[in-house]
């Protein structure tokens, strides 16, 4: 496959995925309301139409067929309103649609993975067909009503006229010629000629096709109608139409008057009627849909999709500009000069670069709503499957975070929501009622900003964590020491240890052994933390704290000799000066210091990094008390240089190959004067120091 094709495929995948997501959202809202609003019917119709079209273009026929069928169905719904769907079949309708969405997703995934598409779509197509039949109830009757009702709908209006004027000719064939075939009136005339071979008694609409060339446009636009007296006559004529040249689509239509012989109709063209009906929208979308679709289009045009790597690039360039700008304005060459104009321009430049930085950062920000909306579906599916009534409440959906973070937290959130549904909410409604709770369980998903962090909370009002059970399990798993007293917090932390799963049964949704530990790891990968709080009987809250963006962080610059190191500010507890007398030595040459009734080891950066320069005397330097993970210690450095926002840059691969990460060197950043500071990873510094001693 050429690269050109690939980019089309990319576009296709992107577009289809977006549409499916949109569809999922619409379906969930609709299911709640147990009906489709006019807008959502139009929207679904449009989505299916687009998927059908693009899938056909990409030659994914299974996708196309299913989309086509659903489109057909929604065409009917659109024409006649949601009332056409009987109450009883609505759950089936929703289930079918959800299934279809899953089917599309599955197929799209196969396309992404370059796997062959599934060919067995009969199951789903049959389901749709049977639904269409149900919806139509009386298909023939419904069909004829459609045109009659759609007076504004151009072509159908003409059809209605004919049937009204000629109550004897009630059995029609609606014929469409190939788009752009030209001289439609003559083609129609030729068609009438061949129909004459089968049956002589019929009328056409428009009538005088042979003589009036202006009918060409009408036919091209609205199709050509041939009306017969009886259904048999029409069935004969269909053969002629089938063989007619340039015939793109045809469909039997029945006018309203006498209750038409629907059963006779059905076998001749099983479900074909609605199927054929839809493509008409291909050529001329019904006016009803137009305003809605038009409005959508308009809203969409103000959005463009950009490759993430371009944004990364932009971000990199902007960070460079910010750094270079400060290199220029604080250039040593300017020392001692009085440059009023320069200073003024420099100030303006600074303001602009600040703006530029803000804008380029904001470009990467996306709302979490996309991720949150997906959870709706999970809660819905699980509550059906597990027979637990539950609702999902979303708070702060429009909170924006960096795109990479959204991607990274999507799976963890899903996992936690599943956990809440599976283990959190009470097994039986009665338990909830007995506990004085609303029989319908609730999962609250909320997101909010606090300064440099985004906080995502997944909260359920279920039974909470049975700490005793967790502790027992932890002991059984060898994670905890028996007879040791653990605090509530420590016990909850066991939940996030590898291989810990309190539910002994493996269900479809959770309990596969991979659990909260994976969540913790994923979140840690983007620099975040996970905490669990729970009260027995009151439910459980899982909180994810994630830095807004990974590329920029607050750090404390410290120096050792000539080198500058950056310690992430969120790991620093405090900095302190100590005297030689405060330092306690242990037999293994280790040093410790007592802070607030606790002893903390001292790690000398100079020794750890085998540096030539730097303070040796503990009284000349300063201790940075840091804490990360389970480790808390004091890092001895020369000087505190101040807090700064830094742009994190990874170390070159060549350097990383030497395993510097294990020594706590996680990256570097360029300071305002162009020099490089080394970013320390507090946990690994400890590990390195520990293995060194």
């Amino acid at each position, binding site marked *: 496959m050429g690269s050109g094709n690939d980019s089309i495929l990319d576009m296709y995948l992107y577009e289809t995925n977006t549409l499916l997501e949109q569809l999922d959202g619409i379906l969930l809202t609709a299911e709640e309301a147990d009906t489709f609003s006019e807008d959502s019917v139009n929207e679904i119709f449009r989505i299916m139409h687009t998927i059908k079209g693009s899938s056909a273009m990409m030659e994914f026929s299974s996708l196309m067929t299913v989309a086509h069928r659903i489109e057909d169905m929604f065409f009917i719904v659109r024409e006649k309103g949601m009332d056409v769907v009987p109450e009883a079949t609505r759950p089936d309708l929703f289930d079918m649609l959800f299934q279809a969405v899953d089917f599309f997703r599955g197929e799209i995934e196969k396309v992404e993975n370059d796997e062959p598409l599934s060919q067995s779509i009969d199951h789903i197509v049959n389901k749709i067909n049977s639904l269409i039949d149900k919806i139509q109830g009386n298909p023939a009757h419904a069909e004829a009503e459609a045109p009659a009702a759609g007076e504004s709908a151009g072509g159908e209006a003409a059809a209605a006229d004919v049937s009204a004027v000629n109550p004897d000719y009630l059995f029609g064939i609606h014929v469409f010629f190939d788009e752009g075939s030209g001289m439609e009136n003559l083609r129609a005339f030729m068609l009438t000629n061949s129909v004459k071979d089968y049956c002589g008694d019929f009328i056409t609409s428009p009538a005088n096709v042979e003589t009036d060339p202006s009918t060409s446009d009408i036919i091209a636009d609205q199709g050509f109608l041939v009306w017969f007296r009886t259904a048999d006559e029409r069935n004969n004529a269909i053969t002629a139409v089938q063989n007619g040249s340039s015939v793109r689509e045809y469909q039997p239509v029945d006018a309203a008057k006498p209750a038409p012989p629907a059963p006779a109709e059905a076998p001749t063209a099983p479900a074909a009627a609605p199927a054929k009906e839809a493509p008409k929208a291909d050529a001329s979308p019904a006016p009803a849909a137009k305003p809605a679709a038009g409005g959508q289009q308009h809203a969409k045009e103000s959005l463009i999709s950009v490759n993430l790597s371009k944004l990364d690039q932009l971000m*990199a360039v902007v960070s460079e500009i910010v*750094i270079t700008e400060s290199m220029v304005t604080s250039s040593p060459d300017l020392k001692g000069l009085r440059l009023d104009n320069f200073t003024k321009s420099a100030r303006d430049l600074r303001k602009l670069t600040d703006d530029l930085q803000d804008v380029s950062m904001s470009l990467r920000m996306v709302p979490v709503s996309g991720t949150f909306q997906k959870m709706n579906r999970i809660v819905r599916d699980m509550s059906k499957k597990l027979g637990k009534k539950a609702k999902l409440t979303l708070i702060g959906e429009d909170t924006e975070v960096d795109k990479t973070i959204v991607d990274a937290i999507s799976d963890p959130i899903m996992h936690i929501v599943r956990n809440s549904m599976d283990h959190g909410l009470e097994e039986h409604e009665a338990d909830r009622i007995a506990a004085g709770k609303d029989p319908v369980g609730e999962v609250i998903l909320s997101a909010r900003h606090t300064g440099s962090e985004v906080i995502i909370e997944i909260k359920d009002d279920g039974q909470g964590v049975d700490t005793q059970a967790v502790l027992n399990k932890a002991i059984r798993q060898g994670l905890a020491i028996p007879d040791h007293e653990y605090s509530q917090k420590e016990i909850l932390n066991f939940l996030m240890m590898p291989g810990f799963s309190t539910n002994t049964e493996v269900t479809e949704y959770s309990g596969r052994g991979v659990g909260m530990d994976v969540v913790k790891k994923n979140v840690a990968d983007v620099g975040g933390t996970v905490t669990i709080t729970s009260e027995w009987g009151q439910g459980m809250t899982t909180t994810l704290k994630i830095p807004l963006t990974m590329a920029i962080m607050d750090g404390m610059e410290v120096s050792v000799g000539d080198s500058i190191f950056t310690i992430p500010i969120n790991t620093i507890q405090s900095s302190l000066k100590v005297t030689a007398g405060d330092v306690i030595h242990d037999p293994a040459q280790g040093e410790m210091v007592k802070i607030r009734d606790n002893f903390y080891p001292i790690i000398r950066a100079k020794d750890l990094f085998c540096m030539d320069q730097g303070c040796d005397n503990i009284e000349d330097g300063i201790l940075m008390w840091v804490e990360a993970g389970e480790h808390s210690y004091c890092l001895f450095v020369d000087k505190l240089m101040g807090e700064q926002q830094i742009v994190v840059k990874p*170390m070159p691969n*060549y350097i990383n190959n030497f395993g510097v990460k294990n020594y706590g060197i996680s990256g*570097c950043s360029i300071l305002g004067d162009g020099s490089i500071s080394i970013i320390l990873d507090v946990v690994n510094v400890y590990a390195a120091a520990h293995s060194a001693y």
Partner: protein
Amino acid sequence: MAQVEEMMFATEAQVDEYNDQIPEIATEKYLIFSSDSLMYGIKAELVKDIITGYSITYLPQVPGYVKGVINLRGQIIPIVDIRLRLGKMPQDNFCSIVVEVEGNMVGIVVDMVEQMVDIPLDDILPVPTNSGGSHAMVSGMCTLPDGNTMLELDCEQLLHD
């Protein structure tokens, strides 16, 4: 200077050959630099930049021949001292050729950058297999027009051990 002109002449002759559609001698541009009185050559297509006067940030926990990293227009680039890498005494100067090898940008500290030459690929001879450690990281040898011998630096090997 005379050599340079000679080389340029050779290049033009080659252009003519291209134009005449006569099968040409495949040549490759090399950047010649000296290190510890030996002449080395690096394929010019690998060379991204020649820099002097950058301050190197010391990095702990890396082999001694990695002098540290520099900030080259916002990119963090490791600096390798070829003298130390080849087990020789370091010299206190900083002239570095930035090369891109397998997607990694690396600065190589050299004594002096000499010139660019076109070398016919056929003229590059293999290194005698029994040659000692001093020829390590050399993937080929070639006699230059001025009579010196150029050692082709094996950049991949320089980075990997």
